[in-house]
Structures are given as structure tokens and as C-alpha cells.
């Protein structure tokens, strides 16, 4: 597109053109109206003068006869700037006056008429227009009085000229203004287009320039910059996630592969091969689990699950999840208490909220569990669970008794104004305040917890689920320990529940 073409296509320029046409029409109408009225006014004025003079002459004729009339006309004809006069016999022969020639037949008709004429003293070629009135006096004498119309013509001419000039000026100024405005607009839009093109080319750090005038372009630029900021941070997050995924999935994959290669190289007996295969399956199950968790987080974050949301009781979820984990907690020497009696309605996905809460309880048990005390049981609890075939699972009662209140995990669900708050509190080592915001990120595992099983995705999922429901996850100090707190918006109309 050429520069001119671009200019002509701008909205500003097109608007200018429309305004221009409207203004021109308006100006033309105004001038036309003015001209029409002026013309009428002048005609009226002339008519008044002519009628007055005619009346005067008529009176003189009536009083003193033809001689007096001729004398009066003679005098009047000679005055500078005089009107037109002509007195004729009934035959049409001129008796007095200053008219040299008229259009033929003018004298025959009485009343007002416009005609071309020439004065006596003027050369043949000079012709003017005049408004004349002819009256027949008693005795057949005809008398014509008229006034030159030059004044009127000049006036109309001036108006027409003014009209042409003003329209020309309006057009020139309008187009110039249009070009000026559109170039300004175009310059800023071009600047924006340029920036967006570099951004589209992959440089997300580009920002639109804000002049500071606070006009609509500035506001647009500020908003677009905000949007770019968000996109950039999301992209950065995504890149971090992909890097993390690459790392956290490739590490076990490498391990898997190394193990298989080592087995191919060195294993000799069937038992050894079997062992490697079993390890491989276990490792791949861990991978699948990590993958599932990632997909689940992605789904929760994209809001894809939103369609399947229904109202459910969070207190019931808290009780159910606690019930599911209670034996495990006891097994690990902890007590799991639940305080969720009040109906707490939330609109959402029950399954996801259950899983989020399960993750929190699972974490609490994992981190708050006291290290297995030597002598309480022959087998550490972890092994007891693994070897599920033997009924001799250590009850861990000894550990719970030793730790007392410190080993209690508390799950609560409560309504606070328009929020439903779910908390899971433990008395484990807690999370240092500096790390609390970080642990929610994907794959973040604190140094201390590296030895424990886990993918580093549990809290990320909890946080994603909370956000999906329009809520948030907060990690607080339980002094000592950790209190995880999910607050969710309460469902619109909580059904009446008998306490």
C-alpha cells in the first residue's frame, strides 16, 4: 500500500471527508438562503421607490396636466443616480425621460416587469437591466418609472463569489486538516503495528510507547502493555514448566534406560532380569503418575473442567477424605481429627476438591510423621504397609502416645461469611516463610523433602484446583507446623440445614 493510499484509507481521513461534504452543503444552503432573501429585499425596496415616484408624477399630472408632468420628468431625469423615466403619447412617441431604448412591447403592458434598457446619453452597446412599472394616465398618456437592477446583480455576484471562495476554503482546509489528523493517527498506529510485529516475530519484551497525553491511544497502549505483561509472564511460566518437565521426566527415563542397559550387559540369571523388569515397571508407574498429575493441573488451570461443576458439601468431602486417610495416619503414629459439622456448599468439581484435600492430608501425614522409633515395632511402618500380605501391621500407638498433641493433624471445613474455608494443620517441621510461595510451583521440592517420595506436584495441583473454583491456597505457620488453608467462594444459596 502506498503512503497516500494508506492515508486515504484511514478512518480519520474518511470522517474528514464526510464532515467536509456536510459542511459544504450547509454553507451552500446558508449562502443560497441569504442571496434569495437579499434579492427579495432589494426588489421590495425598488418597488417602494418606483411606486412612490410614480404616485408623485401621477399627482402632478392630475393637478397641472401634461406640461407639468414633462417638466418634472425632465428635472428628475437629469439628477445624478436618477431612476428611469419615460413619458409617451398614446401613440408611443416619447415626450420626456432618460430612456434610450427598451425591449419591445414593454409599454403596452401595465404593471411590473423586468427589462433590458439603455439610457439616452449612453452608446448603443450599453445594456442594463431594470425593474420598471408602466401606468396609463387618463388621456392615454403612458408613464414608465423604473430602477436599475445593477445593484442587485452586483450583490448577488458578490454572494456567489463569497460562496465559491468559502466552499473552496472549507475544502482545502478540511482536506489539510484531515491529512494532518490522519497522519498523526497513522503515525501512532504505525508505531503500534511496528511494535506488535516485532512481538509477533517472537520478541515478547517489546512494549507499545505511551506518550503520556492520556488520550485513547495511550489508554489502548497501556491496556495492551498490561496484556503483553501477562502473556510474557505466562510464557515464562510455561517455559519454566517445560524445562522442569523435561528435567523431571528425563531423569527417571534416563535411570530406566541405564538400568535396562546395565541389565543387558551384566545380568546373567533370570532372577536378575526379573528384578530389573519389576523395577522398570515401578519406575514407569511413577512416570505415569507424574504425567497424570501434570495433565490434571493443566486441565484445572485451563478451566476445561468448568462445565461439569455442581453444588456439593465441602464438609462432607472433608469427612470422607479424613476417613480415607485416618488409618494411614494412625499407622504412622499420628492422629487425624476432623472438624466439619456445618454444611458448606460450594459449586465445583467434587472429585478435584477431594483430590486437592487428599493431597494436603497426604502431605501432612508424610511430613509430620515422627521418625519410626527404634523398638516400637520390629518393622518400620513404611515396610509394614508395603508388605500388605502380612496382617502384622504395626499400629504405631506407641509413637502417637509419645508425641501427644504434637502428632495431631486437624482437618476443618467451615463457612466464613461468603467463603468456605478448608484447613489442614499439622505439627510437622512446617515450611520456612521464605519458601511458602515457592513450594506451590510445579516440581519445587525443598531440600529436606528430597528423600521422601513425591513429585513436587501435589501443592501445585491444590493451588490450581483452588484457583479453578475462584479461591486460593494459603500456607500459614501453625507454630509449629504448617497450616494449609483453601478458601473457596460459597455457593449462591446455601440450602437450609438443620444443625
Amino acid at each position, binding site marked *: 500500500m502506498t503512503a497516500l493510499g494508506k492515508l486515504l484509507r484511514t478512518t480519520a481521513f474518511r470522517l474528514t471527508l464526510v464532515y467536509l461534504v456536510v459542511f459544504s452543503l450547509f454553507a451552500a444552503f446558508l449562502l443560497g438562503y441569504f442571496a434569495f432573501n437579499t434579492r427579495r429585499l432589494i426588489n421590495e425596496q425598488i418597488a417602494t421607490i418606483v411606486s412612490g415616484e410614480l404616485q408623485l408624477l401621477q399627482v402632478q399630472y392630475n393637478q397641472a396636466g401634461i406640461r407639468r408632468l414633462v417638466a418634472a420628468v425632465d428635472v428628475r431625469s437629469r439628477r445624478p443616480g436618477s431612476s428611469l423615466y419615460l413619458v409617451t403619447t398614446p401613440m408611443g412617441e416619447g415626450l420626456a425621460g432618460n430612456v434610450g431604448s427598451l425591449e419591445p412591447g414593454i409599454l403596452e403592458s401595465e404593471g411590473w416587469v423586468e427589462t433590458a434598457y439603455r439610457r439616452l446619453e449612453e452608446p448603443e452597446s450599453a445594456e442594463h437591466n431594470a425593474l420598471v412599472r408602466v401606468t396609463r394616465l387618463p388621456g392615454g398618456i403612458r408613464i414608465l418609472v423604473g430602477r436599475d437592477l445593477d445593484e442587485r446583480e452586483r450583490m448577488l455576484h458578490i454572494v456567489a463569489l463569497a460562496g465559491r471562495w468559502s466552499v473552496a476554503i472549507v475544502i482545502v482546509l478540511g482536506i489539510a486538516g484531515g491529512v494532518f489528523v490522519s497522519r498523526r493517527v497513522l503515525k501512532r498506529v504505525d508505531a503500534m503495528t511496528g511494535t506488535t510485529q516485532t512481538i509477533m516475530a517472537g520478541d515478547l519484551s517489546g512494549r507499545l510507547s505511551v506518550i503520556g497525553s492520556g488520550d485513547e491511544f495511550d489508554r489502548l497502549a497501556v491496556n495492551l502493555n498490561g496484556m503483553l505483561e501477562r502473556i510474557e509472564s505466562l510464557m515464562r511460566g510455561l517455559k519454566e514448566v517445560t524445562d522442569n518437565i523435561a528435567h523431571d521426566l528425563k531423569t527417571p527415563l534416563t535411570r530406566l534406560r541405564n538400568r535396562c542397559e546395565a541389565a543387558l550387559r551384566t545380568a546373567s540369571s533370570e532372577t536378575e532380569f526379573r528384578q530389573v523388569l519389576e523395577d522398570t515397571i515401578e519406575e514407569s508407574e511413577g512416570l*505415569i*503418575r507424574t504425567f497424570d498429575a501434570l495433565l*490434571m493441573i493443566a486441565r484445572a488451570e485451563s478451566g476445561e473442567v468448568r462445565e461439569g461443576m455442581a453444588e456439593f458439601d465441602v464438609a462432607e468431602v472433608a469427612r470422607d477424605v479424613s476417613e480415607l486417610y485416618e488409618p494411614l495416619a494412625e499407622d504412622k503414629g499420628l492422629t487425624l481429627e476432623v472438624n466439619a459439622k456445618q454444611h458448606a456448599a460450594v459449586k465445583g468439581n467434587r472429585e478435584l476438591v477431594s*483430590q486437592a484435600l487428599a493431597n494436603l492430608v497426604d502431605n501432612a501425614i508424610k511430613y509430620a510423621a515422627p521418625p519410626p522409633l527404634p523398638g516400637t515395632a520390629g518393622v518400620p511402618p513404611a515396610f509394614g504397609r508395603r508388605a*500388605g500380605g502380612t*496382617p502384622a501391621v504395626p499400629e504405631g500407638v506407641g509413637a502417637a502416645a509419645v508425641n501427644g498433641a504434637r502428632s495431631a493433624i486437624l482437618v476443618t471445613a467451615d463457612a466464613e461469611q461468603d467463603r468456605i474455608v478448608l484447613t489442614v494443620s499439622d505439627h510437622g517441621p512446617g515450611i520456612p516463610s521464605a519458601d511458602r510461595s515457592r513450594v506451590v510451583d510445579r516440581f519445587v521440592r525443598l531440600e529436606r523433602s528430597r528423600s521422601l517420595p513425591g*513429585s513436587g506436584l501435589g501443592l501445585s495441583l491444590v493451588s490450581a484446583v483452588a484457583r479453578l473454583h475462584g479461591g486460593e491456597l494459603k500456607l500459614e505457620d501453625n507454630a509449629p507446623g504448617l497450616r494449609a488453608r483453601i478458601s473457596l467462594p460459597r455457593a449462591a444459596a446455601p440450602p437450609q440445614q438443620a444443625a
Partner: protein
Amino acid sequence: MSDAAAANPGMSGAYLVRSMRLLIIEDDRDAADYLVKAFREVGHVADHAADGEEGLSLALDGGYDVLIVDRMLPKLDGLTVIGCLRAKNVTTPALILSALGAVDDRVRGLRAGGDDYLPKPYSFSELLARVEVLARRHVGRGEDTQYRVGDLELDRLSHRVVRGREEILLQPREFRLLEYLMKHAGQVVTRTMLLENVWDYHFDPQTNVIDVHISRLRSKIDKGFAQPLLHTVRGAGYMIRDGAR
């Protein structure tokens, strides 16, 4: 897998009286071959259809105990195949296999007429356990009011559990756990199946909480008795059966 299955006779054949006829509708050749072979090794007969149309016509002929249907298939997708079968009053139980594992997908699958849903990737033992449960359900081991395994009795109406002459007191959830196990006595029940059917959860708790519940239950029903009834099937799940039989 064949070795593993042979090493664990409990997880198949031994308790299943008859062999099943299965139809596998799956477009991935490798996966299908693997399944056909694996089912044959544990004593079942499996046919294979490579696309939805072929699968539908084979399934319409009937004679299958269970259909294993992949969701994404050429020509006709899995849910449509099941929908067509149900519209023609073919009630052969169908298990849907799918890479789409989210809750919504599961609900959609079951609503379309599927009887069970297993997200990929799955372990063969999980699939086998589910297929056997489906086949048994279809044969019409109806909703009995009493279950009995060995000298263990469970009354679903009065919620009483008795072993020998001793009454066993169970928590409501323990009762439901035992009820589910006894309903499928002699069949392998996986942890996921328990989580889905007893707790109604479809996610995978990171820690194996189910094991703890099982060992609690076991301590209540087996402790002090010479003959254990609740068995762990290594690599697969649990089974309740009368070992003496």
C-alpha cells in the same frame, strides 16, 4: 506378563470357572496383539477388530462375554459403537479404554453405555481384574442379600458380619469394603477398583491408603482364625476366597 501371571495363580484361572470370550476393538496393532496374547495366556479367547465398523458388526453377532473398546477408533469411534449396540439391545458389558482419563471423559463414557472405564496406560492385571468382574456381573450373580465365603457371612440387610460363631463389628466403610470384596469373592479386586467402588474416588492417592484399610479389615476378620480369607495378590490387588476349598 505371562510369567508373572503364571507365578501368581491367584490372579486368574484358578478361581475363574470358565474361560471368557472377549472382543478387543483397538486400532493400535501392537497393543491389540499384546492383549490378545496376554488374555490367551490366562485362558481366555480374544478376538480383535481394528476399527469401529468391524468391531460393531462382530459385537452384534454376539457371543462375547465382554467388549474392550478403545475410544478413538477409525471409521466409528468407541462411544458410538457402544451407543449403537445399546440401541439394539445388545447388553454385552463394555469396558472403555482411553487416553482421555479426566473425570468428565469417564462420565461421558459411562453415559454412552460403557460399563467401566480404564484410562491408558493401564496394567494388564488391572484390565484383567476389571474384565473378569464385568463378565461375572453379566452372567447374573445378582444382588444377593447374603454373601458367604468359607465361614464368613455378611448380611447386607441387617449389616451383620459373622465369622464362625463370632460377630464382627465393622465401621460403615469397612462394611462396604468387605461387601465389595465378598460380592466379587474369588476374583481379583484392584486398589483402583476399591477406591472407585467403595469410596467413589477416581484419582490416585499418592500413598497407598487402601492397603492400610485392607490390613485393618484383615485384622478384624482374619485375626485369630486359622484360615485366612483376605489375600493379597501380588502386583494386582486383593481377593477374598475360602482357601480350603
